[in-house]
């Protein structure tokens, strides 16, 4: 049996899966204390279950997300080496940010050596401020990690934890590397404490199978391995719903996935079972990062959103939420009240809900039922508009080769899959508003927990070989090798695959789920003057988001 748990903003869902069957699902309110919520959820789902039967478990939590949004990050110093470009002070982050002398160029050649005295001076200043966690980031460190390694080596004795930039991603983007490293460093203590406490709870409950956390790219990472890059576990909720949609439906063709919740509607696109990934990285709070994620858009319209009728007769649904729906003791009309009024939802105080709809109706010149209809239509219309813009934006992303311009792979959703509490009730309205067939899968109301439960481990490596410099580097794995002029794409692919599989196994992948995919592959002849001096090979390979074989086999 597999256990999946998703901590949402208002509710925490837990499922127990056997083969392709959902044996049991529970929902509890999410409390202020995350560990307590987890413990309560586990107690609920495990009653009457032998813990030994649970062979794996996965959690999508809000620990990192909330710490970032609520600014509860640990105090972290930053040591940065930059070189020419934008003034690095523009990216100052944390209480003690220091730029030291030293510069690498885009090929990774050293342009200005590191200045040890300025590094030590910065480290001492950070230490004097009572900070014991630091991040070390260099511009172009993914081309050559030497400066970051050197700084780290000089200062590591002074700090309890040093996070480095080159290992967060092989992607180029210095500001994002700074922010991602900062988040990894500043979440380290909190996350370590959390994973320790969770481990303790799980041990206590005799749950000894592999334990995973969900990441925003829809993949999982082993709980104990996650402390190295805790920012990678933030913003996993939207990914959980996409993976749940994938698990419960398969999402063949181009599918628009909508997760209609109480406060928001999250949208994403799945192409033949493959969620569309963000090419740059997820934004966490104010910070743009290099952390891979599924492209999702969160619209502030959900079942509990405020419904208003403007003086011109125009209705809006969201983006505000003011407490619960009227049917549940709230003060302001919501789409949930519309559902209750129409008898689609047999919950709460129907009389109160109907009264709220009547009030809307008086502004619109119709009765309560007609007003409720209008509310659901307007909600669907708002979602449809946002979804169209979302797809348009994905299709407008720039491309850099003739091949891509001419063979444009435009996403044109052929159907819509809706999950989340109000899914079956809102689906007919969305179908009409978007003019696309809508489906609602079984277990739509616990899709997120299912998604977390059956998502496989994902990993990614970026290989760059520069035979002029004579190096091949895979920054995510901390690998750098000398190479000769003959190094070619075949060798690069073999090397990347080996490293990728090892990386994935390290963070908890099972060896029967190591499907590797080349996501980017380019080779350039390097010429200086009229002489060929080398070859520049760029390769990205990943284990993309997908489902664990146990689940696929049974589907």
């Amino acid at each position: 049996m597999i256990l999946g748990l998703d901590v949402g903003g208002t509710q925490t869902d837990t499922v127990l899966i056997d083969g392709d069957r959902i044996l049991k699902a529970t929902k509890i309110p999410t409390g202020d204390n995350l560990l307590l919520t987890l413990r309560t959820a586990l107690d609920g789902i495990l009653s009457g279950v032998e813990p030994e039967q649970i062979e794996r478990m996965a959690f999508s939590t809000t620990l990192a997300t909330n710490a970032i949004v609520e600014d509860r990050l640990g105090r972290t110093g930053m040591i940065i080496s930059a070189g020419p470009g934008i003034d690095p002070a523009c990216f100052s982050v944390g209480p003690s940010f220091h730029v030291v002398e030293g510069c690498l160029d885009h090929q990774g050649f050293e342009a200005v050596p590191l200045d040890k005295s300025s590094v030590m001076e910065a480290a001492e200043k950070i230490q004097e401020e009572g900070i014991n966690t630091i991040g070390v980031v260099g511009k172009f460190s993914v081309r050559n990690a030497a400066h970051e390694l050197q700084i780290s080596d000089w200062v590591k004795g002074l700090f309890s934890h040093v996070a480095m930039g080159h290992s967060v991603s092989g992607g180029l983007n210095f500001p994002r590397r700074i922010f991602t490293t900062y988040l990894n460093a500043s979440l380290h203590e909190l996350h370590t404490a959390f994973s320790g406490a969770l481990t303790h709870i799980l041990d206590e409950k005799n749950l000894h199978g592999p334990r995973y956390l969900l990441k925003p790219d829809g993949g999982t990472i082993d709980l104990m391995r996650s402390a190295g890059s805790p920012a990678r576990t933030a913003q996993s909720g939207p990914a959980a719903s996409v993976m749940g949609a994938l698990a419960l439906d398969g999402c063949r063709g181009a599918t628009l996935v909508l997760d209609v919740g109480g406060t928001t509607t999250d949208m994403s696109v799945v192409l033949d079972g493959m969620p569309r990934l963000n090419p740059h990285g997820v934004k966490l709070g104010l910070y743009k990062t290099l952390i891979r994620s599924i492209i999702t858009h969160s619209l502030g319209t959900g079942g509990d959103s405020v419904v208003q009728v403007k003086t011109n007769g125009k209705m809006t649904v969201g983006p505000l939420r003011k407490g619960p729906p009227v049917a549940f003791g709230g003060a302001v009309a919501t789409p949930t009240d519309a559902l209750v009024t129409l008898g689609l939802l047999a919950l709460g105080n129907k009389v109160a809900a109907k009264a709220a709809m009547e009030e809307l109706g008086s502004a619109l010149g119709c009765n309560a039922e007609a007003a409720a209809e209008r509310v659901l239509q307007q909600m669907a219309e708002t979602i449809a508009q946002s979804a169209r813009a979302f797809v348009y934006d994905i299709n407008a992303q720039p491309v850099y080769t003739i091949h891509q311009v001419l063979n444009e792979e435009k996403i044109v959703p052929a159907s819509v899959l809706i999950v989340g509490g109000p899914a079956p009730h809102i689906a007919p309205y969305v179908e009409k508003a978007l003019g696309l067939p809508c489906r609602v899968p079984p277990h739509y109301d616990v899709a997120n927990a299912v998604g977390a439960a059956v998502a496989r481990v994902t990993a990614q490596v970026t290989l760059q070989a520069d035979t002029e410099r004579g190096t091949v580097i895979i920054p995510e794995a901390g690998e750098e090798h000398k190479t000769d002029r003959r190094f070619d794409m075949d060798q690069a692919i073999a090397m990347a695959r080996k490293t990728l599989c090892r990386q994935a196994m390290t963070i908890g992948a099972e060896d029967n789920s190591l499907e590797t995919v080349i996501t980017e592959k380019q080779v350039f002849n390097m010429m200086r003057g009229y002489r060929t001096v080398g070859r520049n090979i760029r390769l990205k390979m990943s284990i993309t988001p997908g489902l664990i074989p146990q689940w696929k086999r049974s589907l």
Partner: protein
Amino acid sequence: MISAPRKTGLVFFPAFDWAISPEHPEREERLLYTQDQVMEEGLLDIPGIVEYRVRPAAYEDIQRAHFCVPDEAAVTTKSHLISAGGCLVAADAVLKGEVESAFALVRPPGHHAMRVVHGNRGFCNINIEAVMIEYIRTHYGIRKVAIVDTDCHHGDGTQDIYWHDPNTLFISIHQDGRTLYPGSGFPNESGGPNAQGKTVNIPLPPQTGEKGFLYALDELVMPLLEEFGPEIVINSAGQDNHFNDPITNMNFSARGYAVLNKRLKPDIAVLEGGYAIENALPYVNVGIIMAMAGLDTSFVKEPNYEKDYRPQSRDVTLNIEQLVETLKDLFLWGGLKKKPYDEGQILERKRDIFYDTDGIQERQNEKIRCCSHCAGAFSISSTASTGQHIMGVHIPMEACPACRKTALNWFQTGRKGAFKHVYLQDRDRGVYDVV
């Protein structure tokens, strides 16, 4: 956090799958390191810098600016269409008001492509700026355009296309043609009979540095622009004046380019040449993007700037001061004696044009109708070593009835002649006819 004071569009198309030939300077690798630098700086994350996706230009767009022989398909590749299309995307972004200015960082370049195109000259097949300008004129009702070409090579293609157009001010700042391809671009090349003084060439001596470029800009280019009063300013932003460039002899820098751009404030910049792909382009392009966006560029410089940049010599400074003085006299203070022509007079000129990349020889015979009411009709008969023999007739926008009549006469006569193809480019009515 950082944000751009001026909203700027960026159209980036490095054409990673196109080269003239594997070892040609115009090859796949050319913008690779520029992309690396732009990405690593995180420029595209800065609020106010908006990246746009390219689209290919249509043949119709090319037909506004060129006579392609025998047709567009024969002399362009997909990459040329996308490069030109990238400029159209930039133009749309600016003219629809989505951004204040835009930079088309695209390849292949275009400023050596003339109105008649038999093949590739100086790495260029179609003139991407001209295609863009004519698109702007057709779609946005703009007439007066200024082009400032800061590529190290004389923008002879653009000069050719706008030679007769009094509504286009073309200024080219380049390395003296006696020392560099294409060997033209001297002060006496100042525009056709209907557009005298609307072509301004500023041939700078080899080794001109930051000081010289900015001097020419401040003393000459800016006052010329002010006097002309264009509705839109285009910068042909070649980057081969750089001290690291392998095929030129100038001494400009990334910082210099950034300052130039800040002062010039073009509405649209279009990449032209520049082949120091690993030690100039990454920094120059970052400098230009940041300058357009109104960001602080004082930290932008080449890693070898301190080591290798030398301020220009006194000789060069004196030489430039003298040149600028001469040009000021000609173009600002009325020193250029405009030749008087009779209304309706037909002037002819014969020219030989060489296509260095494709090894084609072309002989042109051009007729222009002198006219004080419009830009004047003209016709070009062209014979090339490829065996082509064609005639192209151009009717300008807002043509006067007399010029239209003359042009249509030429076209009818041409049809009966021995030409393989006769083209009619009727800009006034938006028609392009081939017979």
